[in-house]
């Protein structure tokens, strides 16, 4: 295996890790409107991710920076090409982060209501837009001989891409509902389970539609098992939710997210950004990669740091393992 193949795998893992973690964060954000009935319930949901959302988001920064280091051309083409959707995502992530930290800082009705709106919309929109972006990534976009994106933003909003957006939005919401059922206690837990069933069914239908479309359009022998795994994991997550086995349900919904992105990355390889203008102009793991020296340095850094990061991040989930409910929420100050 070439070093750049290994780095493709690592970057795929970083993105997949990001969607596994921030996926349920986005879902929780959406559920603050669809599941929570009042402010206290909204606070219960927000506090299930309170201590961890920031570190979850760093997976995105790391995926971006690692792409910059290992595949500069991929980084350059992707972010200059998907300019406006990325701008929208950045604005949402900025507002959403501030909303989590500032919402409780003033005990005023209008202040809190506004930040809660921000949390909802700025979770919903990125959950949708990431799906649009990755659908475009795997389908291919117009790229010229100089590796630059030559299309317009409208090229990024085809039916396949929109279906991809809808799929990730519903999948993340389901993932969030399963997470909410796992992390809460009391009445909200029961309702989270009930809602998870509906989101899970919708996610299942969309998964079949989107992933089969992906498989037919760009798939190969490697991506097929991932597709089957994604669909089976969704079904198992639904079954476990129905049986009240919340830990297993979360494991399965996480597996579904991982497998769904595995389909995308396996179908993409060895390209990193296929060109629809001329396949010769596609960016590949070989022509977009950094020099072997840079990749070697980064392999050492990633080899040491990634297990450590996963270790201490897992530890925070253990520290905050206690379920919370409305009775745990202190009065606003």
């Amino acid at each position, binding site marked *: 295996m070439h070093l750049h193949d290994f780095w493709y795998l690592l970057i795929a893992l970083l993105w997949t890790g990001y969607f596994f973690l921030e996926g349920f964060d986005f879902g929780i954000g959406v559920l603050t409107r669809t599941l929570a009935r009042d402010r206290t319930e909204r606070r219960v949901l927000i506090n299930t991710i309170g201590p961890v959302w920031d570190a979850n988001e760093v997976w995105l*920064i790391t995926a971006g920076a690692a792409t910059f280091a290992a595949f500069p051309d991929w*980084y350059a083409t992707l972010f200059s090409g998907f*300019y406006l959707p990325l701008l929208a995502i950045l604005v949402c*992530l900025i507002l959403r982060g*501030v909303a989590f*930290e*500032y919402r409780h800082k003033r005990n005023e009705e209008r202040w809190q209501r506004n930040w809660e709106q921000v949390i909802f919309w700025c979770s919903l929109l990125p959950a949708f837009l990431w799906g649009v972006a990755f659908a475009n990534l795997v389908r291919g976009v117009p790229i010229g001989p100089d590796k630059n994106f030559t299309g317009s933003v409208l090229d990024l909003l085809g039916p396949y891409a929109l279906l991809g957006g809808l799929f990730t939005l519903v999948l993340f919401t389901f993932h969030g509902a399963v997470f909410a059922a796992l992390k809460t206690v009391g009445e909200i837990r029961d309702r989270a389970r009930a809602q998870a069933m509906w989101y899970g069914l919708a996610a299942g239908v969309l998964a079949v539609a989107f992933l089969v479309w992906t498989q037919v359009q760009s798939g190969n022998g490697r991506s097929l098992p991932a597709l089957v795994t994604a669909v089976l994991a969704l079904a198992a997550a639904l079954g476990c939710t129905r049986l009240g086995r919340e830990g297993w349900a979360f494991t399965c919904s996480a597996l579904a997210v991982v497998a769904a992105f595995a389909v995308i990355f396996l179908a993409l390889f060895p390209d990193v950004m296929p060109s629809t203008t001329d396949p010769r102009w596609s960016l590949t793991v070989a022509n977009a990669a950094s020099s072997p020296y840079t990749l070697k340095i980064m392999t050492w850094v990633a080899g040491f740091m990634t297990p450590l990061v996963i270790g201490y991040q897992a530890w925070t989930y253990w*520290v905050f393992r*206690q379920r919370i409910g409305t009775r*745990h929420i202190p009065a606003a100050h």
Partner: protein
Amino acid sequence: MNLALAPETLARWQFGITTVYHFLFVPLTISLAAITAGLETAWVRTGKQKYFHATKFWGKLFLINIAMGVVTGIVQEFQFGMNWSDYSRFVGDVFGAPLAMEALLAFFFESTFIGLWIFGWDKLPKKIHCACIWIVAVGTLLSSYFILAANSWMQHPTGYRVDPATGKAQLTDIWAVLTQNTTLVVVFHTLTAAFLTGAAFVVGIASLHLWRAKRRRLRGEELGEKQRHQVGAMRASLRLGLVVAVIAGLGTAISGDSLGKVMFEQQPMKMAAAEALWDTQAPAPFSVFAVGDVSKGHNSVEIEVPGVLSFLAHSNFSEAVPGINDIARQEAARYGGKPDDYIPSIFMTFWGFRLMIGFGMTSFVAGVIGLWTTRKKLWLAPEFRTGEDEVPRLMLTRTREMGPFLTKWSWRIGILTMGFPLIANSFGWIFTEMGRQPWAVYGLLKTGKAVSPGVGQGEVITSLAVFTVLYAVLAVVEVRLLVKYAKAGPDTDELPPARDPRLRLPSARTGAEADEKPLTFAY
């Protein structure tokens, strides 16, 4: 096309706005993390409540600030690809590595342990909780180191070769990038400036509370118990802030001098521009004030101190310092084009340099005076000593207190200079980045060739407008929150957790009890 709206100009404005804005939060985050960690350590070691209240108070302001630092940092990570895709392609092999190291080594530390610190007050044993904020502080230091190594490579490329096949920079020696003297000196300068920033912030807010309490006493009112506790916490903070201000201010001056010498060697144009030194002179004078005219290539008004610039550049008063016109001719001969193309904005570099030094050193001097006048009570004659929960007297000598007028203005200056280092930092970056123009990577890649060729004018205008408006709105929100929490002072009713929580799983009985307890902190 109208030059003012050229993609390069727009992209530069966007980078300038988002980066200067981001760097308002960065130095405060770096220094407040360490200051909060220091105060929590004092609490863990001594058990004194004033340290607990101070930790909580500065921790709150730190969190309001870091939230903005984190979210504006996301833009920094992605806008190289968005607006500067040709830059990214050219430098990615070298520049991407420190960025990825920053994410892996620093950002995960900061984000994970800040969550533990915020929510962990009653879940972690005291010492581990305190270790969390120290890890956050170390994370901020690591982060600044890696990003400054990346920036230093743009100032002075090293450890690379240009690949003849692709025409792109290729890393050949990561160690050279991480340890070149530009990196080390810049890190020293930026970190000391960051600590000066946090120190001035702490001194300013502590002065506000102490001066308020002092005025109350002057009006003949007695302080209540809560207020005395607040004064105790603020007095401890004031002393810590002053000590940090003096050490950091001194460090900023020393490192600034070293950085100047490095820059005279590596980017003579930047330093000549900083002095508006048009013609090579030996000995070269230090310019205090000048009004220059780029088209004429000389200054129309000037006030100078002879020989000092030679000293700043070479540590002696007579050696020649090359001037703008000579350097521009040399660069034009070497890289092609007209000499004028190689002259940065003299107005911005000259004044940016002076404002940086002026605002920064004012805070340093204020710190020195503050530290002297509030020096430890045992050095003072007994009748001037004040208790730990009283406002300190401002003492000129052992037995001589400042008069009412000087006292009033000393406290007020402490409050008013609170934001001076922030201004100094901003002008420092504007100076160093504008002084490098027309280069994005000095000697290798011009800024005009670094922009994204595929991104349209409309898109850049959109993002520039969106970020400007968004950042302006958030600035108002943030400052108002800071003012609210800063004015409120420490919440002295709050008590530290009575028992040290354990990490082990609680026994069945106590576990059930703990399960019913509301969270001590929740969003």
